[in-house]
């Protein structure tokens, strides 16, 4: 029971902190923000790691490895594309020819 309360507490705490944190992020960065939080949602990769920490059956191994590939795709791809996108946001061009 205490465990359940602790888990609900953590969920609510993170949700509220996240809410206040994110609600003031400029709309300029909404796409990168979504893309980054998308990468964070691949945190399920931790779950797969835990799954593999004890002996498992063949079926579990197959399911687990597919889940791992997907999560890794989401995680690495998400952060990489966010990084690429954010590199595009510049304050000023550093030169360039003039007509």
């Amino acid at each position, binding site marked *: 029971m205490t*465990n359940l309360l602790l*888990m609900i507490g*953590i969920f609510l*705490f*993170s*949700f509220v*902190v*996240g809410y206040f944190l*994110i*609600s003031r992020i*400029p709309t*300029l*960065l*909404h796409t990168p923000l*979504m*893309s*980054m*939080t*998308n*990468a*964070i*949602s*691949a*945190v399920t*990769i*931790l*779950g797969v790691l*835990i*799954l*593999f920490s*004890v002996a498992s059956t063949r*079926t*579990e191994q197959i*399911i*687990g*490895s597919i*889940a*791992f*590939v*997907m*999560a*890794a*795709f*989401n*995680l*690495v*791809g998400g952060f*990489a*594309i*966010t990084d*690429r*996108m954010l590199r595009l*946001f510049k*304050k000023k*061009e550093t*030169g*360039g*020819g*003039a*007509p």
Partner: protein
Amino acid sequence: MTESYAALNLVLDFCVIAILILGIWLFHWPHRAKFGNLTAAFALACAAGLVLYRNGTMYSNIILLSLVVGSGAGFWVAKRITMIQIPAMVAFQHGAGGVAAFLLSFAELIRGSQHLGMVNEISGLLGLAIGSLTFSGSMIAGGKLSNRLGQTPRILPRHTWLLMINLIGIIMLIIVSVVGLLESRIFLYILIIFMSVLFGVIFSIRIGGADMPVLISFLNATAGVAAAFCGMIIENKLLISCGATVAASGSILTHVMCKAMNRSLYRVFVPGQDISPKNKISSQDTTDTQIIAPKNNFQTALEYAREAKKVIIIPGYGMAVAQAQFAVIQLSNIMLDMGKDVKFAIHPVAGRMPGHMNVLLAEAGIDYDLLKEMDEINPDFSKTDLSLVIGACDVVNPAAIEVDGSPISGMPILHAHKSRHVVCCNLDDKPGYSGVKNPLYENENTILLLGNAKETIERLVETFPQVTPDMEEYSSLNQTDQKNPLELATATLLSAQKIIIVPGYGMALAQAQFKVVQLASMLESLGTDVKFAIHPVAGRMPGHMNVLLAEADVDYDKLYEMDEINPEFSQTDVVIVFGACDVVNPSAMDTPGTPISGMPILMAHDAKRILVCNFDANPGYSGVENTLYKDQKTIMLIGDAASTANNLIEAIKS
């Protein structure tokens, strides 16, 4: 001992969460966001390290192989994708996250079906259901965004009923699993996955193109919730916390998108069948009358644009479809160079995902200070000379304010109708996604430039600078004292052994590349050694000059990078500069404290003679006076680069 160990673990978990929060917090400033992204990635790497350290692993080979395959594929796709494909890419990524979540729940459920607590089991079943529907919903969304599926909402007969029955079915299955009525649980789990996948499909197919920002944000939230439920099965605090943060972020974005479209979440997800057909009828009525509105008044629009001092550009999804963002930035740069006040007004739901327009314009190299949010810019419209609407309709539809009872009534819009003139570069004058006709099109001060936005803007860019008052001044100046410099220039060119040509953005603007290349091959046929020096930031995108010169059929062996060619300038007889300024400005090296100080430049000033074929002698984009122009070795040929090149060709011929 165990207590202090547990406490330490709790502290470590909170440290990781704190790093993650720091990463998100850095997103409050555009210039720190990149670091924030890396910080968040670091936090997750720490979390993975922590889990591995605490639990160890039995199958390091499987993990390693999966890691290489998954992250390799993710990285490869992320590097290869173009910016127009980003919305679809994000949707597919959500889908991958959903698959991972439901497979993890599935594996945990079949493993622990005997000894899982009630709470864990319910969490697992919910994770299973939400993960599956996130997966299928995202696949449909991704298909729509990448144009593999139709953009229009597909409504099945009794759509809402189907959804409800499906949902009740899933809930029933979950209850049956928990109570344990059936022996074969695995069969039940698979049935739940199947039903949830179906639910995601039915749910998403009836959401149309312009409501995609809401759907994609919503799926972002469900992916987070699924991750949090996964955390609850295995009682892992990091998973719960990260999942909840993502859920919060997705909810905020969903809320912001809904508010910006003035639609409740319910109205987006359950489009009233009675509303849309009515509006479609009314829209058909009005298209006939709208044809009377002035069409293709290109010259008038051009005059407005030239006269305007204060310009606001309003991009919409049409700009994304026509891939017009580069042309739009080109146009805005021309206007900025002429000293006009140019801003971009970004409606929160313009495009297909939150912040879509910002990404596209950033891709085209905009200074993000010019991008203004709706509330910030709306008071400015009444003081604005020209609003340039590019592929946007509903977000500038005054009916939202003026008419009650339409689907968009009360939706916040950009007040383009308050500016002195409005020019709409839209594909057609039909109503937008909402189906409400746009009275802005009929206003007296509105000019419609119908057709492909990219072509329209490119036409504006081409015609814009050539007849401006400034230009006339320069060309008249040009004609009076042209003879001497041109003769001198021709003589220098004919006696030169080694020539380097430096192209810049001005060459692109004047579309002078063909003439330049003609001049180059002519000089070569006279036995001169001709090379092209390409500065990395010449033009408006990486490799811009290379593309243009390639278009004009230059052998790419003749195109030299800066570092490669810089030592050669001192042995060069003539450097011809076509429409480049900052990249050959010696101030970058010899004057400290200017905006370009320290920027690497092409050493054109080392050559024996320099011909500058620029539009004017003003400073370039940086605003720093170019000392090269005043050098005694320099011959200035002011005017349109294409005609200057032509003059040189004619002079050499004779």
